[in-house]
């Protein structure tokens, strides 16, 4: 059942992105930045966690989860260290996405030659 909800929720988030592309004529950069900010705002109100419980990867795979995990990391650490924790904990949860992008980007650049 969770597969079906992952499919539907993930699909809907992608449709929102597609509407931003086609109807509002935003570039991919603007669209993705907007979605990340939306994810962070939803996380601020505690709504994104509920979406993850409900849709699983449908909520964690789209880029909106990046904004969510930044806020989650910052809030987790700020419970322990107060305001300083907001800065020290920011990348606590997101580190896997960014570090894997950097590491695999470097490996890709070593292995593959540009095409075309």
């Amino acid at each position, binding site marked *: 059942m969770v597969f079906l909800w992952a499919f539907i929720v*993930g699909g809907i988030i992608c449709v929102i992105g597609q509407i931003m592309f086609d109807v509002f004529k935003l570039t991919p950069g603007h669209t993705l930045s907007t979605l990340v900010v939306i994810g962070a705002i939803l996380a601020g109100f505690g709504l994104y966690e509920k979406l993850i419980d409900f849709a699983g*990867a449908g909520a964690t795979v789209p880029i909106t989860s990046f904004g969510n995990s930044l806020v989650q990391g910052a809030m987790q650490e700020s419970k322990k260290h107060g305001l300083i924790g907001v800065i020290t904990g920011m990348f606590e949860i997101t580190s896997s996405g960014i570090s894997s992008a950097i590491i695999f980007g470097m490996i890709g650049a070593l292995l593959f030659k540009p095409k075309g």
Partner: protein
Amino acid sequence: MSNNKKKNLTPTQQQYQAFAKKREVKRPVVKNCIKAFFVGGSICAFGQAISTFYMHFFNFTEQTVGNPTVATIIFITMLLTGFGVYDHFAQFAGAGTAVPVSGFGNAVISAAIEHRTEGFVLGVGGNMFKLAGSVILFGVFSAFIISLVKTILIQWGGF
């Protein structure tokens, strides 16, 4: 185009803008949305399969399983980008491949591969986050503001 910009144009330029707008190819919005829905949904369902695998064999919970899932999807994106498959796929699916985290991975990895001819330090190192940098900047900055406000409310507001 905003009205403010329009005021600064000469009449000929305004005529051209109107003409260009008439000739602009209408984007098939509904068809693109359906494609984006199915491709994006499939990527998320695939991600769910990876998540289920990690939850079963490596003791992750529903909230933490996002991390290894994201890393695995970025790894697969690297292979697809390197073999030149991803571009064709992305052209077909539009936002369906751009919005899932694979789009973020593709933006980083394709920039890294594309600029390797300029050398590893200035080319790969300098251009890796050319496209994905805006996502990180706005994500981090908005998350900072939100967490700051929330922390202040919790600590001094007594919520």
